[in-house]
């Protein structure tokens, strides 16, 4: 950490701005205040003990005991405010992202319909069909967005029910790739699928594992550079099946890797490439995979690409 960074972190006002709360509710400010309270409490208890003529060892013990109590209370107070501030921040972030993402298709619908209704514009049959198609697509996009938000809510409140059955992953992945063909084509990316010959059926929830697979392939397409390949692989190990998606796109900056599974997270370099989406794909994928008894991980280098993989046990005891 550079000296500039250290001084920047010492600036309470600057640190508090990040939390978007008033100074009196800012965890950093409260931490400093609690620090002062602890010091004052220690000194006060020491001087009171000294005033009443207690032994030096007893004075020291009283001061230490006071320090422990006030520090513990202070810690819990500051932590509570930190959690509240983070919740408030997340709520603001959530509202900003949601409103922007939903207003885009709504604007598209409004503008398309205003042209269709306009009396002073001559529209050809083809243009009319295109505009109606845009209205339809915007509606579909909004439904998909709302469903993804509801899914996250269900995941977090545990209201999601899993239905395990034997699933042919080769078939599932093939269908997922077929569904994404148009998106991949639009980006001039080529999805290549490789799988071992003896991939066994696995016991999992087909709908939920499809969401995981779709989200990973979606991301690979979104963040691939044009005219590049996306490699999708299925491999068998002794007890598991390993699914992986590799792209040669923008990758994830080192400093942001720790946030990659957070809700509404979008890496800084992502905006240079594309602006759509809530940032819920990986959060949802990881959450679902954990519930299915699988494990996910990734490797990524900025400007070189990313490799995401998950392992799913062949025999899942439910």
């Amino acid at each position, binding site marked *: 950490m550079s000296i500039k960074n250290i001084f920047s972190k010492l600036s309470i006002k600057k640190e508090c701005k990040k939390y978007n709360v008033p100074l009196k509710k800012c965890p950093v400010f409260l931490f400093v205040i609690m620090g002062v309270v602890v010091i004052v409490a220690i000194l006060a208890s020491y001087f009171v003990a000294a005033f009443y003529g207690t032994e030096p060892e007893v004075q020291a013990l009283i001061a230490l005991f006071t320090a422990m109590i006030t520090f513990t209370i202070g810690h819990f107070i500051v932590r509570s405010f930190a959690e509240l501030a983070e919740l408030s921040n997340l709520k603001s972030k959530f509202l*900003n992202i949601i*409103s*922007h993402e939903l*207003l*885009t*298709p*709504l*604007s*598209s619908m*409004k*503008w*398309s319909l*205003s*042209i269709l209704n*306009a009396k*002073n*514009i001559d529209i050809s049959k083809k*243009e009319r069909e*295109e*505009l109606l198609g*845009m209205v339809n*697509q*915007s509606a579909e996009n909004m439904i998909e967005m709302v469903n993804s938000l509801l899914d996250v809510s269900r995941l977090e409140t545990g209201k999601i029910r899993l239905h395990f059955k034997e699933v042919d992953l080769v078939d599932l992945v093939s269908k997922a790739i077929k569904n994404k063909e148009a998106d991949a084509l639009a980006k001039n990316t080529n999805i290549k699928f490789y799988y071992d010959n003896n991939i066994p059926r696995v016991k999992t929830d087909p709908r939920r594992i499809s969401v995981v697979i779709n989200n990973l392939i979606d991301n690979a397409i979104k963040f691939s550079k044009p005219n590049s390949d996306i490699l999708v692989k299925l491999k068998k190990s002794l007890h598991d099946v390993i699914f992986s998606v590799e792209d040669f796109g923008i990758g994830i900056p080192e400093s942001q890797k720790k946030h990659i599974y957070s809700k509404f997270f979008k890496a800084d370099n992502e*905006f*240079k*490439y*594309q*602006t759509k989406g809530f940032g819920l794909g990986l959060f949802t994928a990881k959450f679902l995979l954990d519930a299915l008894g699988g494990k996910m991980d990734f490797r990524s280098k900025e400007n070189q690409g990313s490799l995401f993989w998950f392992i799913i046990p062949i025999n899942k005891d439910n």
Partner: protein
Amino acid sequence: MKKIVFIEDEPSLQKTLTMMLKANGFSVFSAFDGETGINLVKEVNPDLILLDLILPKKDGFKVLEEIKEDESTKDIPVVVLTNLEDTSNVEKVVNLGAVNYLVKANYTADEIAQKIKSMLL
């Protein structure tokens, strides 16, 4: 014919507003990201720029800043057209030199075209 450069990454919004602007007698040049937008502005030298804020490659704030710093483009009026309703963004773009800030969802395509008409004609 007055020229407009429209910098917007959402294809359906590009298409619909361009259609409306053309129907109102404007010549429209489209860019889908910030970098292409800046190059297009320098190439076309439009009468007005319509600028989205959330853009790939270079966001609208940086585009606005660069346009206003460049001698050849600093006098071209810029209208920010976005779905970000945060008042801090309004202040920011006005300080950077934008002449207007319109929230897309609050207007029909026709209303935006009429606003631009009243600014240019």
